[in-house]
């Protein structure tokens, strides 16, 4: 068909381009494009065909010389050829470019088994982590966090807590003293417990009151299981009609939430603390599993035992008075426990002294990610 039509070029028109020429030129150009090995070769072919002086460009100029009635025929034929070449050029260009890119990328191959630059990894100390956990648990029960000085005076640390000068319990506290006295003539010491914060909170905030007071405390005691500095958390509730039952519920709720176990069993034992009356020591049942204490179950169950975890009781009337409140109007409970020990029980460390060494190997192992923020929705504990 094409050839029949193109014969018109020879028979009807006299353009100086024979169908023979048309055909052979077309073939040559398309072949050259097909064979262009590089983008430079391809460009040369483009110039040779479609460039200003290119064969096809020259032919296109001839269209104007054709009488109008035949112009559409010639124009369509020549432009079709131009389009054909143009798309051949584009196809070849795309192919050559893809090949060149492939080659370049192949040359850019790197060894990805080489190490990437490492960002240093940090950690949050287990004590801080557990303090955050405790704050979260107690916030849910409406306890605010309170603080007080660690360098205390003997009134806040002892006298106000119903331990007057000659009280034998004072001697049991292994207190660190300073030679200094404060403006009121009170002896300065390192607080032996977080309980002075009870007094400070009552004096500062009055009642009703629900606070926890975590922090450093100090006892002149150092052996495998005692360090002269450790961490306690104190809890205090002052309100109307608060009794031992509320204390028991609070401690149960706290320990269950902290260890995330419903089977926590508490054993309350009468005890003695000068600042509470009645006083209660709290044991929790645990099992020995693989040399580790695993909290849960009754201490009386087979393979289980009790371990003391908390001291607590109903706040002594004298302490409420020292806090500036009327003990006939207000009553409440207080409790205290060791944060370091809670951390050890929950997360399985066995050496208290390592807590204060700053050994990065230990910190990397037992520390927590910055993103391990204890929340009630995401869980206050961080599983392995």
């Amino acid at each position, binding site marked *: 068909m094409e050839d029949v039509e193109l014969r018109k070029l020879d028979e009807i028109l006299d353009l100086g381009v024979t169908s023979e020429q048309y055909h052979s030129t077309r073939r040559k150009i398309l072949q050259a494009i097909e064979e262009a090995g590089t983008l430079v070769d391809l460009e040369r072919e483009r110039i040779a065909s479609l460039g200003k002086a290119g064969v096809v460009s020259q032919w296109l100029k001839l269209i104007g010389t054709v009488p109008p009635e035949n112009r559409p025929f010639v124009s369509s034929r020549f432009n079709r050829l131009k389009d054909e070449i143009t798309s051949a050029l584009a196809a070849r260009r795309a192919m050559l470019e893809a090949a060149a890119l492939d080659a370049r990328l192949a040359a850019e191959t790197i060894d990805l088994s080489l190490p990437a630059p490492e960002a240093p990894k940090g950690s949050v100390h287990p004590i801080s982590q557990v303090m955050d956990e405790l704050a979260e648990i107690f916030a849910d029960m409406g306890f605010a966090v309170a603080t007080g000085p660690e360098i205390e005076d003997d009134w806040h640390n002892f006298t106000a807590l119903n331990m007057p000068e000659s009280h034998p319990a004072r001697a049991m506290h292994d207190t660190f003293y300073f030679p200094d006295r404060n*403006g009121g003539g009170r002896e300065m010491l390192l607080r032996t417990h977080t309980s002075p914060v009870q007094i400070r909170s009552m004096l500062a905030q009055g009642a009703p009151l629900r606070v926890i007071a975590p922090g450093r405390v100090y006892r002149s005691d150092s052996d495998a299981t005692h360090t002269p500095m450790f961490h306690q958390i104190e809890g205090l509730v002052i309100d109307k009609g608060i009794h031992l039952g509320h204390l028991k519920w609070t401690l149960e709720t706290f320990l269950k939430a902290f260890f995330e176990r419903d089977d926590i069993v508490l054993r309350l034992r009468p005890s003695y603390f000068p600042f509470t009356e009645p006083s209660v020591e709290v044991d929790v049942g645990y099992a020995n599993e693989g040399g580790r204490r695993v909290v849960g179950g009754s201490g009386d169950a087979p393979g289980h035992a009790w371990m003391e975890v908390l001291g607590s009781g109903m706040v002594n009337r004298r302490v409420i008075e020292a806090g500036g409140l009327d003990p006939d109007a207000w009553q409440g409970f207080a409790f205290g426990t060791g944060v370091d020990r809670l951390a050890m029980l929950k997360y399985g460390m066995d050496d208290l002294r390592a807590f204060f060494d700053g050994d990065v190997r230990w910190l990397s192992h037992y520390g927590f990610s910055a993103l391990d923020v204890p929340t009630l929705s995401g869980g206050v504990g961080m599983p392995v």
Partner: protein
Amino acid sequence: MKFSLSWLKQYLETEATVEQVAARLNAIGLEVEGIEDPAAKLSGFRVARVLTAERHPQADKLQVLTVDTGEGDPLQVVCGAPNARAGLVGVLGLPGATVPANGLVLRKSAIRGVESNGMMCSTRELELGEDHDGIIELPADAPVGMAFAEYHGADPVIEVAVTPNRPDCMGIYGIARDLAAAGLGTLQPIGALDISGSYPCPVEIRTDDPEGCPAFYGRVIRGVRNGPSPQWLQDRLKSAGQRPISALVDATNYMMLAHGRPAHAYDLAKLNGPVVARRAKDGETVAALNEKTYTLDSGMTVIADDGGVHDIAGIMGGAHSGCGEETTDVLLEIAYFDPERIAATGRKLNLTSDARSRFERGIDPGFLDTGLAHLTELIQTLCGGEASEVMRAGTAPDRPRIVHFAPALVEKLGGVRVEPGEQKRILASLGFTVVGEEANWEEEWAVTVPGWRPDIDGAPDIVEEVVRIHGLDKVESVALPRADGVARPTATSAQKLERRVRRAAAARGLHEAVTWSFLPEADAEVFAPGNGGLWLLSNPISEDMKAMRPSLLPGLLSAARRNLDRGASSLRLFEVGRRYLRGEAGTSDERLTLGLVLAGEKTPRGWVTGKAAPFDAYDAKAEVLALLAEAGAPVEKLQVMIPDALGPGPQFHPGQSATLRLGPKNVLARFGMLHPQVAKHFDVEGPVAVAELYLDAIPGRKGAAGFARSHYAPPALQALTRDYAFLVPAGLPAGDLVRVVQGADKANIAAARLFDDFRGQGVPEGQKSLALEVTLQPLEKSYQEADLKAITDKVTAAAAKLGAVLRG
């Protein structure tokens, strides 16, 4: 407090086992610290008879025995004891038994080629005595084959921790009383004994210090024969951890352990003149029974005669007048000493004793005559003798204390409902006398406190008595009522800030350490605040823990050194905690601080980075700025100040450190390289970058701003940048130039960032070239040439004030 079960059962009629007793003790507040059950220790040992004893063929000192164990064929046992011989009845440990003294587990074995099926034991090996010269020899009629524990009559020993409020339980009788109240048995009454004597007390007894010694009773027993106590007494004392000495001494110790009632026996022959309780004279000395000499003062009470001090009253007797083998006449002292006086004296002399621990808790002032009568009887039983009449000097404080208490309080405070009748029963069984009606829970009772309970002084104490005997396990959990309204944050802003910076630092690759609050004084001195002095402990646990830290850096530097010593190559440590300064009026000023130490390699040698790189001051600066930003400090307003009076201090490299301040005075942080001398002091090698953030100095948010942020819409027009290079004096801090350029045209300049600091070719000597990229943000319409020229003019003019010249 330790005691054997059989001793307890002398006062408490009960069938209870040792486990039941222990469980009940725990339940009523007498915490069981341990149970030693010798039967358990002695399991695997049995009474056995040696049938034959032959020389060991390979060893001179060994014998080969055949031993009849009461069942089956006799066993062959190798034995090294010289007294092993045919016919001897002793104790054989069978394979599998654990030797109490050393924990060795016995096995069937060959000793020098001869089979041995156990061990014949000495008393020491079974922890029954000190004798180790030979094996135990039992009477010839001891039943061969019987478990030795059974033969020996092993008596379990219970140890309880007695809280300081319970002097009554420093005696076994008091413990028995509590157990009886708790329903574990029947308390045997302390019988009333005839206290009359057959002759007047030949010694004058007097108290010249009625404050320290309100009551001093005594009597003489003539014609006693002192010597070792009988075995039953020795066993009891040993069970309580008390060493038997002689019958007279053992009798007083027995009284103390049984009834919590210390007493003293003097050898009358060694006394001279009236025996008087009086204040000591300053400087007076006494050689005490512990073979130490104490120097006394007038604040202490002593028992003395014309010859001198014989007793540090209520604490320890003197060596001179103690009873010995030769004692024939004895003066018994039973006295009531003031608890506070005893406590103070004991503290001052740093002398603890069984007597002190009881007197200072407060013994029963009503147990003088009865105690003395029982002691007399015991001594007469052990040693014979004839007792004089009792001489009584002074009177014990008469304190029938009455507590008013409404039975309703038990439920109100204790959270458990106990019927008034049961409350009365409990109180009565503990020795309280209760007067009051049971019908009305709110009506107060008059409760008279027994003399042995000095701890009871208010209604809550009565609640405790009722609840602990009734059972704390009967207290039901009751939920704390939830506060009405919306839950609000329970942490203060300071606490939230602390948590934020802690996690920010950890996220930036630093490890949080917790170091001691106390330091060696020398370390603290290096970082001493200079103005107020250090807090130094009077009684540090060691010199390494003497000074409260004035900075977090010393502790972190020591931790860094320990890590480096262990081979750590790179250290990024931080701590959030308090530093301890002097506050007003002698109080402490404890400031929340974050310290950080960067030591060792910042980057290890690497295939990209080449050689390892150390930390520099800019690393510390980067941490400080990032953490301050997280802490909510207005970082854009902070100024980097070169060292001056406000910091960073002589601990830092003077040319590579600075403070960051908000305004001229408020230092929020100090950072930089550690001074090489300080690094040397802490023994840390290589360059160390450190920083300290004063978290307490960061201004808090003002007021309750709510949650909505200020309005902002990103500008529609695109920002563009212009670069400016200035020649400035070499000493000009680049930050100053950046700040003035940034502030040159606040309406248009959104940011200015330094990207080049060049000295060398093309830059005159004494100058440097600083290049800044300035970001311009058109707001309403795009910039025209004229606008840009105006901005450049403002930038150039502002920079010129610092002596900066725009480069062409």
